[in-house]
């Protein structure tokens, strides 16, 4: 009876030292591996020569598809389109988006690309033709405007426009 009473009185202390040691070892390791900024990538390509297909067969006309060319100059964007459609139809797709207050109007470019994509649903290729002096940052922002639109930032829902970007220089 005496010993039972003694046990009840003794407070049980958890030995926290091994857990503390583990935490102290894990924190520096995780700090080293932690990413405080996120990196992503944009796929791009440069024009490559291809060995032409069978020339005896006439290629099938694709009327749901156009290739959009976006020239980036110091004054703004110049848009034109190529495809199997009649010249007048392709010409109507083109246009110029001048700078707005000295800045490139990426919003207007995105709207224009969306209207082209809505009309020609199978289109996915955009050829970007920046001027020599155009900054890399401007090229990346132009690629963003032509490639996708974020519909909902929280849910990360996106609408894809021209996902196949080809970067070339103006000859």
């Amino acid at each position, binding site marked *: 009876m005496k010993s039972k009473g003694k046990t009840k009185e003794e407070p049980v202390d958890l030995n*926290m030292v091994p*857990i*503390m040691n583990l*935490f*102290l070892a*894990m*924190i520096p390791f*995780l*700090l080293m*591996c*932690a*990413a*405080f*900024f*996120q*990196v*992503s*990538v*944009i*796929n*791009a*390509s*440069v024009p*490559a020569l291809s060995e032409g297909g069978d020339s005896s067969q006439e290629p099938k006309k694709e009327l749901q598809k156009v290739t959009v060319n976006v020239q980036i100059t110091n004054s703004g964007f110049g848009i034109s389109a190529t495809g199997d459609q009649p010249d007048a139809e392709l010409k109507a797709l083109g246009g110029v988006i001048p700078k707005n207050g000295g800045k490139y109007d990426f919003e207007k470019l995105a709207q224009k690309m969306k209207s082209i994509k809505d009309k020609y649903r199978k289109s996915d290729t955009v050829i970007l033709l*920046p*001027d*020599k*002096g*155009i*900054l*890399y*940052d401007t*090229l*990346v*922002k132009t*690629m*963003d405007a032509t*490639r*996708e639109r*974020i519909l909902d930032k929280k849910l*990360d829902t*996106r609408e894809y426009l021209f996902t196949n970007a080809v*970067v070339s*220089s103006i000859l």
Partner: protein
Amino acid sequence: MSRKRTKEVEVMSLNLTSMMDMFTIILVFLIFSFSSQDQNLKLDGDLTLPESIAGLDFKWAINVNITPTELKVEGNPIAKVRNGKISGVKIDKDKKRILPLYNLLKKYKEIENREKVNPTEDETVIAFQADKNLPFQLIDLVMKTAAQAGYPNFRFVVLKK
């Protein structure tokens, strides 16, 4: 006297509970921000990457970096960059290629054809890290050189907005 004796018997113990709480919070935060991205990506401290809305994750690729002062492949300096132009190395102006870069990438391509170096099944591409303030003229020259050496596809490395 009796008061003095009581002081000697008392054992001082540290209260670790609040410290444990703090460590737990830090640990949970760090585990959540733990990066599972490919460690092949070698970010260069000398350059400012452009920001983008792109959401694609990085995959294995050959690292080509252009800082405002240097052109590097896998961290090895290839040429100097001055005022947005390559300097100090031979450039083939007709074929539009930086010769040391072309020769190195050509060698990489030969090794790649001989041995399986790409851990992914996809075609090998170039992970392109360039400073956001560099002119397109320089970017174009590097891209054309890589394309001629057998790497026409690129992944532009950007910071997620």
